[in-house]
């Protein structure tokens, strides 16, 4: 009898991994608990142990094979020595699967519309690398820039965003903090008042609630309270919103919380390209900026500008797809889902959607939204946050005030469910806006 050993999921958001090392050879006897391989994900390198006993019949991937999907067989263990069964065949299937994976990646890239005036690199990089590279580029340019947070240095970043920064910039500028958000956030705010440019990494924005007094009462308001004397050049960044099955306390979207506060600027990148342009603007801005990343997007690959000074201005939305029938206003991870929905609506209902990626939530690009609605006469907002007083709510207000007479249908908001995030994968899917929800909303505003 043969047992397949599958590529394990080592984190909630892992979809594929790389086989860095085999610690066993074909024919070898393994016992439960023996380490058989080292698997590398975009976040970490982990050892895989055997849970059953037997002889290694076949290793289905070579050391160095990359992008192996989770749950793909990577080895076959047999209870008899020397038995040869379906191993070879499985290996062939795996190669096919790999090709599909690569195709999927290219497909994702189509969703990132390059800007006309941007010179793009041929090499595609991940969102994670785009963020890291931008931090490094700005740290090279300005010695006042430093980064601090939990696990940013020796661990190389809880989500590997800060990989390699400690080695390049040293412990003076890449600083591991204890788990004390209020303390290190307040400290960074003080450092910014005194002229440094801190980048504060929250392991996730859920933990920023521990520090929200320092962000709002100290960072956002002091310029005003000091009559313009003391500014706070600081970036608060980290993953925001849902990851995968991390449940209520680790899955909250804070976009409208922070976008409500005068004195803060709020950015939400959706692609490696705009992550670079927006983060550079954030680091160079003399005001406090909230930079809302998304854990699921960290692995998204795409082109980036080859210009190390490429910035995207605050308050400028990107028309990710031009169209004439209905406007979708979205940001962050929901851009990808909105673009998928647009394809379905084009294919099945011949609707030509215009998809606006806000990029900047405060300031908000009202003009682009209004102009689009004047053209399409219908609008749907799509976002991951809870529905009450969300960014979409503000968009609704902008549209009713400035384009009331252009509307041919009531505006529909697509949001997460108005409940805490559940753990179960089935309920989680129900909680989050899905492509079908977007399709349904667009049909509704078109009376289909």
């Amino acid at each position, binding site marked *: 009898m043969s047992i397949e050993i599958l590529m394990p999921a080592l984190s909630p958001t892992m979809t594929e991994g790389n086989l860095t090392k085999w610690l066993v050879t074909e024919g070898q006897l393994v016992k439960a608990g023996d380490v058989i391989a080292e698997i590398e994900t975009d976040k970490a390198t982990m050892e895989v142990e055997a849970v059953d006993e037997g002889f290694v019949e076949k290793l289905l991937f070579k050391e160095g094979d990359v992008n192996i999907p989770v749950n793909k067989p990577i080895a076959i263990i047999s209870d008899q020595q020397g038995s040869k069964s379906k191993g070879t065949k499985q290996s062939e299937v795996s190669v096919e699967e790999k090709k599909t994976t690569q195709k999927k990646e290219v497909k994702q890239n189509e969703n990132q519309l390059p800007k006309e005036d941007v010179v793009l690199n041929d090499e595609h990089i991940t969102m994670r690398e785009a963020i890291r590279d931008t931090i490094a580029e700005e740290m090279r340019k300005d010695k006042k820039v430093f980064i601090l947070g939990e696990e940013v240095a020796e661990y190389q970043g809880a989500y590997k965003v800060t990989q390699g920064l400690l080695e390049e910039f040293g412990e003076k500028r890449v600083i591991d903090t204890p788990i004390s958000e209020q303390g290190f956030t307040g400290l*960074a705010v003080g450092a910014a008042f005194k002229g440094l440019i801190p980048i504060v990494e929250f392991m996730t924005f859920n933990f920023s609630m521990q520090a929200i007094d320092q962000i709002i009462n100290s960072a956002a308001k002091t310029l005003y*309270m000091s009559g313009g004397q003391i500014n706070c050049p600081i970036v608060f960044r980290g993953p925001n919103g849902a990851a995968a099955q991390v449940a209520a306390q680790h899955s909250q979207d804070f976009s409208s919380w922070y976008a409500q506060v005068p004195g803060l600027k709020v950015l939400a990148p959706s692609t490696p390209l705009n992550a670079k342009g927006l983060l550079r603007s954030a680091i160079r801005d003399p005001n406090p900026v909230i930079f809302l990343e998304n854990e699921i997007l960290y692995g998204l690959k795409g082109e980036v500008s080859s210009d190390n000074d490429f910035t995207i201005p605050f308050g400028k939305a990107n028309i990710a797809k031009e169209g004439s029938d209905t406007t979708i206003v979205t940001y962050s991870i929901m851009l990808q889902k909105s673009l998928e929905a647009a394809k379905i609506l084009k294919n099945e209902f011949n609707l030509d959607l215009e998809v606006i990626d806000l990029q900047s939530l405060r300031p908000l690009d009202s003009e682009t939204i209004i102009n689009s609605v004047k053209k399409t006469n219908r609008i749907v907002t799509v976002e991951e946050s809870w529905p009450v007083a969300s960014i979409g709510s503000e968009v609704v207000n902008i549209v009713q005030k400035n384009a009331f007479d252009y509307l041919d249908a009531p505006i529909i908001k697509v949001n997460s469910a108005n409940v805490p995030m559940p753990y179960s994968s089935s309920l989680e899917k129900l909680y989050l806006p899905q492509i079908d929800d977007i399709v349904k909303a667009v049909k509704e505003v078109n009376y289909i």
Partner: protein
Amino acid sequence: MKKITKSDHLKIYSYMLKIRRFEERSAQLYGMGHIGGFCHLYIGQEAVVVGVLMTIKKNDSVVTTYRDHGHMIARGLDPKKIMAELTGRADGYSAGKGGSMHMFSKENNFYGGHGIVGAQVPIGTGIAFTHKYNGDKNICRTYIGDGAMNNGQVFEAFNLASLWKLPVLYIIENNKYGMGTSVERAAAGSDLYKRGEAFGIKGEIVDGMNVYSVIKAAEKAGEYVRSGKGPYILEVQTYRYRGHSMSDPAKYRTKAELDEYKNSDPIEVVKDEIIKKKIASNKELDKIGKEIIEEVKSAADFALESNFPDNNELYTDVYL
């Protein structure tokens, strides 16, 4: 220790008296409706900030709580502009947008004036972080009220300051009450400075009613911090004569207790020293006193004659 010269004694006396007269005038203007909102007076605590002032270097930084009027005067800031801020005028230090609790002077390295109990402690620690990052040998003096010593972020800041050996001198102004709750009813254990010991931060208790004790302790502690050994805590025992803010019923303490402290008034301590050492006569001190009254009165006049902020100012200074 640096010798306290004759002119130092007179400087100490003048600053302490100026703070007191300023605060008395503030109370009057509050009663007349010229100052609004919260207004926390420093009367009784003058020896703390003036004692520390005598040890401060020009490029050292200071950050404090909302009981900040005296701190600004001691930092050498203009009473006219302080009073203009208290009365919400355009000529105030924060252009009328900060008020009593939120005043700043970047050019004098005075970083507020913070309205949230405890919030200034991580901030001051971060300013000290910058001094270390820049290698400029300056230090940050971070004042803490006794009430904040029960606030979690203070201990997060202590941990970071000690861990990273930051040049921050924490000065606890223990005036015995956090609003209306006595230290005994709010803080478990005795001696607030000892709370730093868990983080390896040294500290001591200082008599805050005697400016000379404050100077001695602040000088020693300042040198310790400046030498790169990390943070230090002074717990300065003091007393506020007035309520927590202007609307304080003072039901939580007795008049006898208040009188006891008034009998060891910190300004009288300095006055006695000056007379004893024959640095100045009673008559000369009276003359200084009269000049200060005039200076404070002219600050009040200046404030009341100043314009309220232009309506356009509502929308400025939100972003740089």
